[in-house]
């Protein structure tokens, strides 16, 4: 019988789910930023980290209205 092989349990650490998910999202997209923030929230909780991404985006949009007015 031909011996088939599977990776042993000593194989390299698998990609995390978040890494796998980010690979399917466009670079720099809001979706990618949200997942990255959630996966590596730093000192914040994951919920706070994604909340901050949206708050930053909101501020960015609001500032653009103000800048347009000033132009």
């Amino acid at each position, binding site marked *: 019988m031909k011996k088939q092989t599977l990776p042993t*349990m*000593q194989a390299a650490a698998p990609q995390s*789910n*978040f890494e796998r998910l980010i690979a399917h*999202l466009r670079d720099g997209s809001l*979706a990618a930023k949200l997942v990255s923030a959630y996966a590596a929230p730093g000192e914040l909780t*994951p919920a706070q980290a994604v909340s901050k991404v949206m708050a930053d985006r909101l501020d960015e949009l*609001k500032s653009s209205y103000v800048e347009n007015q000033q132009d």
Partner: protein
Amino acid sequence: MLRINKIEIQGFRAFGKNRQALTFSSPIAAVWAPNSQGKTSLAEAFEFLLTGQIVRRQLMASTQDEFADALRNAHMPAAMPVYVEVQITGVDDVPHKIKRTLVSDYAKRQDCQSTLQIDENPATEDDLPALGIVLSQPPLAAPVLAQHTLGYLFSARPKDRATYFKTILEVTDLDQLRSAVAALDAEIEPADDPNWTKLLAAAEIDEARRFLTPLKTAVPGIDDLAAAIGNAICAMLNATGADVPETETERLAGLEALLLERRAKTFPVGGFERKPLADWAAPPQADWDKLDTYLAERGKVDEETRRLAALFSEALSIPAVDRATQAIDCLLCGTEGSLTPERIAYIRAQTKETENFQAAEKAALETLRRLATKAQALDTAVIAACPRFLATASKDRRKDGFRMERIRSLLGAEAAAVVGPWLEALRKLARAKTAVTVRVNNLAADIAGYVYTPDSLDDPRTMKGQFEDAARTYADFAAVLTHYAEVEQALLELLTALIDAASDTAGWQDLIDLARDPDGLRTTLIERHARTAVQNELSRALGQIDKGNETVLEGKFTDLSHGIQHWWDLLRPGEPTFFSAVKPREGARRTVDLKAGLSLHADRSAPKLRDVIAVFSHSQLHCLGLALFIARSLHEGTGFLILDDPILSSDEDYRAYFKAAVLEGLIDAGVQVIILTQDQKSWKDLEHRYLHKNIDMFQMALLDPADGTTVTNTGDDLIAMLTRIDILARGGHPDLRKQAGELLRNAAERFCKEILVKDRWAKADTNAALSDYDGRNLGQLSPPVEPLLTSDPSHPGKLRSIGSQLNPAKHDDGIPDQGTLKVALGDLRFLKKQYLPA
């Protein structure tokens, strides 16, 4: 790499008061026990150790009560503890001890209780992963496969299967991410904003619609915003036929006037107008001091003088009197020459005496007038704070159209809810207003009297007290007014909307308010539109995340499917009906299906897919359960597996594949395997097949129920060892000869230990045991044994020779040749026969 080195069991199920131990030195162990000898108890001992439960009870939900007292051996003395303990080498290559002790057994509708210790410290299941022990998704959490667990997933509902697979595929973190992102929508949702509400209302005005509607979807510059509002107002004025003024300010004023006019025709809502209640402060202390000073000065001068003081001052102010140097006629009575310089001097002296009094009186009068004004201010304030209609006479109100019937008519069905409370509050307001007015009137009257007759003022404290009473009454009015304002607002909001609708001015007030604060409106629009835009972006991002999650999950299902396929193919190679995949059902993502492929071709091409339940035989389902269990375990990184009769006794065909391909695959994958079987033939076959792995062999028997199941390491027996060595030594491969050499040294050590124990027993040392010599090698054991080999002078030499000949077997470059092995084996067999006869 995780390894179980030893398991010790006392009092657990078939195991009795004599604790039993199995020591593992090989990656594979085989335990044989005929039926009812305790094999399942051994498997369940591992389950209990790791999870504190046994799976059988959890799976048989309907009969859980029948598991009462199931764990503690029925013949265990009450005081003896029931426990399962393992010694392992963790993934950190450090030895650890894990022990679970039963505290209370299963009872009717009650779980068992136990304590877990790691290295003699209290622990929980959460501490096991640090050692490398991975538990899976309940109910099949422990890496123990038994007959009753094999069929779990086929009998589970598809939705339960979905949860089970999703959890073992570890995508719950993706679900949590998704939930966290979805929850952001509520955070971004634009809040209610009065300006937005006004814009929506104003944009409904026919003439204003085309100018204001674009604001609902875009943020214009401030100038464009003002222009939009201005154009809307212009259009409205044009539509009414009114003159359109030149400036924006005039146009706004024009619209406001038009609004009031139209509203008034429907209902004079202006009757509700009122001003905010003015602040009022009590008179300062300086005022009361002035009055006190007046009283003091008045006391110093008699009444007659006071009475005439003013008259004298008036007289002296006449130049003719003031400059008179001789007698002149009296200005009052006309008596000739009666006003002499002496009398003038007297008048002058009298006037001087009353100067202070006059100043004090003047100051007091000014103060009294000020106090009067202050008192009046209270009344003025409460009147202004009350709705205008309250100050209007009834007949004038009716003439203007301010009628209760009209209010009720406009409100319709909603009248009852708001009018009653409003009237009640209005009555209280009127009473509070009257109370203030009465106090003010009384105070004003008193003050007027003091002004007219200053002498009537005796004690300013009385007046001060009156002012304090008036202040309290004012404060009471303020409280009543606050309540009235709330009730009135509810009424007015309703009434105004109805009036506007009836007068065709709906949205006009809103437009006027927005026109007064275009910056505020722009801020609102920026906030609202930015949030709406971000909500849309979030929705798109969520869709992308959902799609990405689906792809990740499909990938993981595919990986798992490949794993299951691998083990399936090892178990059942070349079958035309085969396991195809485990995957979420199309269109029903919460359902997971197990699919079988049916192909006409040897290469399995063009398969027809069906659910395994529908097409697999009992044997195939059994093998699928095993393949799934193994694939899951490897996926989760389980370091060891306990397999309790994993192949049906009727499946002889597949038993061979299992023993060969599957077990070999597991060992190659680094998994430690412990197989329990009731089939002795299979057990022996495993010994032969995995001799090169130095397979640990055990036998279990329940000889005396009082003692419980006993376990024997048959591989440890000297005869069994010699038999193994014989087999290995025949093998030509150097690895087998090396192994034979090592085993021969172990066998020689075993021989020495048995000789020494036998000798001590002969000397009445009945405590002697083989374990007394644990850890000693042949070099240490041989010298004390040699003097005991007395049958022939050559015998000690044979033993010494075994040690010296086989020492090289321990080193990589020293592999004993076959001749050396055979001679050493023969010598040891001989010595055994001579000195340790059966």
